[in-house]
């Protein structure tokens, strides 16, 4: 799959179909998820209507982590095989992931105020997400700071991989540092999800909707980046001729 798409022409053909499909699915699923989540599901027994924030918060958290993993994998592929498309993917993923991590933090704070009575607590899960956000910012800053494009790509790829190795250690040390306030895993558990069906359905729809939204934005950004690289090359050739 990856080596098939590594050819920019094939990627272009793939993206031309995948971008509108992802976009359409994202709009459809998010609209349906919002309908079920905001209007057609009962308020939570303990949390009341604030539970509805979860339908945005949880998908954003999943993407904040998932897009970092994708970025690290793309960086690894670029570092080993030097596929330029993998570097384009990692570059496109970083700001999208950073925005989802930020959405997760902000919606979490809005939820925390009525539920825990404070905007923020220095709890293990919250702190890990904040660190996740910092990792994205570090990646973007390093890329922006190095002028030589190829060196920037190589250095940023190393940083993304180092960040991935560091992630479980951060999780462990942050949990060591603090007892848990944030609720633990609720959906993915060995004994089945501990969440009611009326909440699980809109949550799952929103998770898929957000995932397609991220796919839409990332593919769009990748396609634009490839076009702008091509345009840059053409301009360089023209300047060389003139």
């Amino acid at each position, binding site marked *: 799959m990856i080596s098939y798409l590594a050819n920019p022409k094939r990627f272009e053909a793939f993206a031309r179909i995948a971008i509108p499909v992802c976009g359409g699915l994202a709009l459809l699923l998010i609209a349906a998820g919002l309908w079920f989540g905001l209007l057609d599901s009962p308020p939570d027994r303990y949390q009341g209507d604030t539970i509805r924030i979860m339908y945005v918060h949880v998908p954003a958290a999943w993407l904040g982590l998932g897009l970092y993993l994708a970025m690290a994998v793309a960086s690894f592929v670029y570092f080993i095989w030097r596929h330029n498309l993998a570097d384009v993917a990692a570059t496109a993923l970083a700001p999208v992931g950073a925005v989802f991590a930020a959405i997760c933090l902000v919606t979490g704070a809005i939820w925390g105020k009525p539920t825990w009575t404070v905007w923020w607590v220095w709890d293990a899960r919250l702190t890990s997400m904040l660190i996740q956000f*910092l990792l994205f910012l*570090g990646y973007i800053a390093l890329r922006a700071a*190095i002028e030589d494009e190829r060196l920037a790509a190589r250095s940023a790829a*190393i940083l993304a991989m180092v960040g991935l190795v560091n992630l479980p250690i951060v999780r462990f040390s*942050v949990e060591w540092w603090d007892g848990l306030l944030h609720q633990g895993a609720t959906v993915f558990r060995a004994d089945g999800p501990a969440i009611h069906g009326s909440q699980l359905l809109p949550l799952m729809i929103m998770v898929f909707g957000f995932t397609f939204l991220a796919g839409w934005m990332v593919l769009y950004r990748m396609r634009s980046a490839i076009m702008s690289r091509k345009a840059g090359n053409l301009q360089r050739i023209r300047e060389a001729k003139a």
Partner: protein
Amino acid sequence: MRAGRIFLREARLGFAGGGGPAAPAAFFLACLTLAPLAIGQSPETLQAAGPGIICFVTLLAVLQGAERLFGEDVTDGTLEAYALSGMPLSIVALAKVLGVAAATMWPLPLVAWGAGIAYGLPAEAAGILALSLTAAIPGLCLITAMAAALAAGARRGGLVIALIAAPLAIPLMVFTASAGRASLAGDPAASANLMLSCASSLFLVALAPFAIAAALRARLE
């Protein structure tokens, strides 16, 4: 043997150039003097915040020398000479970073011990804190070296180095400061935290040189 020579060369250069061990120690002391002026002089606050502040300021003191670490090597050809020496670049990186760290960072635990006492920690808690700082400093130096190798020669490299080093320094911050705090509370977890500081540092000694070498090699191509 030749790694030892690189260690000694870098230690000599670190000791002699740019203020040597006095510069980070003086910066460290200045930050530790300002902290009580900022947070107030109540003995309870100072005692509770002391280990954390001392750890955090150690990170700042290590970071302030980071931009210089590889900056000159990249421009003056030292890096090429090291790459041609036939030794693995990761060993060279480890010898260099530990050499500079040994030559310039050794006063920090001593100052930290004194500062801990000035912040109202009992001598034993201050001692545990100084010990775990001794364990953490090689790790912190390797983290900042990794960031410095990635960002060498970048625009506003110092800022970028601090930004990418911060998430990597979290485990060391947690374990080192916890060792001091637990010892203050008479909690036996102090020695566990001290061990975890050593473990984090050793983990970095084992793995960080490869990342540094990869970053340096990207510059040589």
